[in-house]
C-alpha cells in the first residue's frame, strides 16, 4: 500500500511536468539505442568472425611453422593420426574463364580435404590428393566463383568445363559451398591439388600449417608434444623448442578468436555507454531541478508526516521510472530498427548482422534501471535531507 502510494505520487509528479519528463526520457532512449545497437553489432560481428575463422580451425590439432611436404608425410604416418590436410594460398595468379579474367582466391591443397575441411558439396567430387604422385590437372570451384563468372560472362561454368589458370588448362571436377573468412576478392575460391602447383603456380614447397584429424580427439596433448618433438628433431633442434613450430587445437584457435571478438564487443558497448552516461547526467540534472522547484512541496509533505525515506523513495522512483521507461522505448526502437537494418544488410549481401539477443535486451533493461538508481540517488538524498521548516520557508 505504502509503495503503491509512493509510485502513484511519483507518476503524478512526472505527469505534472510531462514535457520535461519526456525530454529527459529522450536522452535515455538515445543512450539505450546506442548501447543495444553497439552490443548487437558486437554480437553480430563476433558471430561473423567466429564463424568465418572456425572454418579455418579444422581438425583436432593444427601445427604451424615452416613445414614441408615430407613433414606432412611423416605426420600422416603417425599411428594416432587419422587424416591430414595442408593448404597453401597461391597469390598473383589470373584465371580465365569464357575469355574473361578473374581473380579468385586460389588454394593449393594436399591431404584429406573431404575429411577435414568444412564445406558443402554441391556437384561432382573433391579430389583425393593423398597420393604424392597425384598430377591430374583438375580443380574444385566454389559456388561464389561460379556465380561471379555467371554474372560477368552470362555463362555458368559446370563440371567438365576447362578453365585457364596461369596459362594451363584445368578441368572442373567439383563445386562446393565453402566459408572463406572474407579475405577473397569477391570472385570466390578455387582449390587446386598441391602436386600440380609445384614448379608452376607455387614459388615454394612449404606450408605454414598442417591440420590434423586424430584417431581420438582426446589425444591432442600427447600428439602435439610428439609431433613437435619429431619436427624439432628433423631440424636438429631440442625436442621442447617452440622457436620453429607450434601446436594448437582447433578449439583453442576458436577460443582465441572469440576472446578477440568479445573484446571488440565490449569496446563497442563502452562507446555506446558514453551516450547512456550523458543521458544519466541529464536525468540527474532534471531531478535536481525538480527537487529545487518542489522544495516547498517537500516541506509540506514532511509537515504532514512524510519521513525522509518516503521522500527519498518518491524521488528515486521518479528517476528510475524515467530511465526504465526510456530503456524500454529504446529497446523497442532498437529491436524494430535492427530488424530493418538486417533486412538491408541481407539485401546488400553483407554477412554482418545486428544480433539483439534476450541477453542484450535484459542487460539494457537492467542498465536503464541501474542508471535511474545511480543518477537518482544524489537528488533524492538531497530532497530527503531537507529540513521541513527550511523547505516550507523557501522561495
Amino acid at each position, binding site marked *: 500500500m505504502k509503495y503503491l502510494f509512493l509510485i502513484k505520487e511519483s507518476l*503524478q509528479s512526472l505527469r505534472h511536468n510531462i514535457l520535461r519528463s519526456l525530454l529527459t526520457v529522450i536522452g535515455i532512449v538515445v543512450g539505450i539505442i546506442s548501447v543495444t545497437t553497439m552490443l548487437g553489432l558486437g554480437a553480430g560481428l563476433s558471430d561473423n568472425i567466429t564463424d568465418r575463422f572456425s572454418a579455418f580451425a579444422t581438425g583436432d590439432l593444427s601445427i604451424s611453422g615452416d613445414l614441408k611436404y615430407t613433414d606432412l608425410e611423416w605426420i600422416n604416418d603417425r599411428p594416432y593420426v587419422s587424416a591430414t590436410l595442408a593448404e597453401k594460398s597461391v597469390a598473383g595468379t589470373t584465371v580465365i574463364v569464357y575469355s574473361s579474367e578473374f581473380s579468385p582466391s586460389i588454394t593449393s591443397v594436399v591431404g584429406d580435404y573431404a575429411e577435414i575441411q568444412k564445406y558443402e558439396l554441391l556437384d561432382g567430387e573433391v579430389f583425393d590428393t593423398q597420393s604424392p604422385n597425384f598430377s591430374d590437372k583438375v580443380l574444385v570451384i566454389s559456388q561464389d566463383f561460379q556465380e561471379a563468372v555467371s554474372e560477368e560472362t552470362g555463362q555458368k561454368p559446370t563440371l567438365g568445363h576447362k578453365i585457364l589458370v596461369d596459362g594451363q588448362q584445368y578441368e572442373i571436377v567439383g563445386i562446393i559451398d565453402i566459408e572463406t573468412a572474407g579475405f577473397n576478392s569477391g570472385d570466390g575460391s578455387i582449390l587446386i591439388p598441391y602436386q600440380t602447383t609445384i614448379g608452376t603456380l607455387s614459388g615454394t614447397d612449404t606450408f605454414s600449417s598442417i591440420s590434423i584429424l586424430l584417431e581420438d580427439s582426446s589425444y591432442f596433448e600427447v600428439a602435439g608434444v610428439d609431433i613437435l618433438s619429431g619436427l624439432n628433431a628433423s631440424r636438429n633442434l631440442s625436442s621442447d623448442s617452440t622457436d620453429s613450430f607450434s601446436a594448437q587445437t582447433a578449439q583453442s584457435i576458436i577460443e582465441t578468436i572469440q576472446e578477440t571478438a568479445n573484446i571488440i564487443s565490449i569496446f563497442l558497448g563502452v562507446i555506446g555507454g558514453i551516450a547512456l552516461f550523458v543521458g544519466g547526467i541529464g536525468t540527474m540534472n532534471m531531478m535536481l531541478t525538480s527537487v529545487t522547484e518542489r522544495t516547498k512541496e517537500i516541506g509540506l509533505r514532511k509537515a504532514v508526516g512524510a519521513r525522509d525515506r518516503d521522500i527519498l523513495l518518491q524521488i528515486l522512483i521518479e528517476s528510475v521510472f524515467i530511465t526504465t521507461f526510456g530503456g524500454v522505448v529504446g529497446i523497442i526502437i532498437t529491436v524494430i530498427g535492427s530488424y530493418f537494418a538486417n533486412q538491408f544488410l541481407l539485401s546488400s549481401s553483407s554477412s554482418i548482422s545486428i544480433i539483439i539477443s534476450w541477453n542484450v535486451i535484459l542487460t539494457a533493461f537492467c542498465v536503464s534501471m541501474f542508471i535511474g538508481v545511480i543518477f537518482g540517488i544524489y537528488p533524492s538524498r538531497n530532497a530527503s535531507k531537507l529540513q521541513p*521548516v527550511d523547505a516550507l520557508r523557501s522561495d
Partner: protein
Amino acid sequence: MSKNEQNKIVDLKNISKSFFLKGGLEIPVLHNVDLVVYDGDMLAILGPSGSGKSTLMNIIGGLDVSSGGEYFFEGKSVNDMTSDELAELRSSDISFIFQSFHLLSGKTVYQNVMLPLLYQRTFKGDHNEYVKNALKQSSLEEEQWHKYPNQLSGGQRQRVAIARALVAKPRLLLADEPTGNLDSKTGDNIIDALTHLNKEYGTTIVIVTHDESLTEIVRRVITIADGHIKETKNSHI
C-alpha cells in the same frame, strides 16, 4: 500525577533557539520560553513580526528543534526524538494550518486532504470516510471536492487546509497566521470554523498571529516579544 499534568499536551521548559549565520554569528530568537498547552485549550501566541512566534510554533509542531531546554509532548521528550519519530508525531498528533495554505496544485481538494493519511504507518480506518468527515467539518461543499486549488477562492483554500489538518484527527492543531492572506469577512469565517472545532470537537488549537482581534475568541493569550514571553492572560471566554 495531578489532573493538570495528565491534561498537558505541550510542555515547554526553558526553550531557547538560536540561528547561526555563515561565519558563526549567532542570532538568538527565543530565550528561556516556558509554555504549557492543555488538552482542549485554544490559545493565541501574539507578537509582532520577528518576535519569534513562528519559530516557537515550528518547535511545538516538530518542524524545528530547539537549541536548548526541554520539550515534552504528552509526557514524551521531543528533544530525544529521531527524524522518523518527529515525522510520526507530525503524522498522527500534530497538524498545521499555514498562512499561505500550502496546498499541492497538482492535486484536487479531496487528494490534498487525503495526503496526511497516506503517510501514516499505522492508520487502520477508511481513508474516504475520514476525508469526507474532515471536508464536512470544514464546511466545504461537495461540489468543490474534486476541484483543484487554483479553482478556489482564498477562503475556500484555507478551509481545504483546515480539512487537511483535521483529517488525521490530531491532538493539536497549529495555525500560523491563518487569516493573514484573507479579507476580513473570510478571515472571520475561518476563525469561526476554528472556534467551532474547538468547542464542538474539543480540538486543541494554538493560533500564532499578530492580529490582536483574535484575542477575543481564544481562552488564553501569550504575548511574545524579542524571543521572551512577556505576558500570559486568560480571556473572558
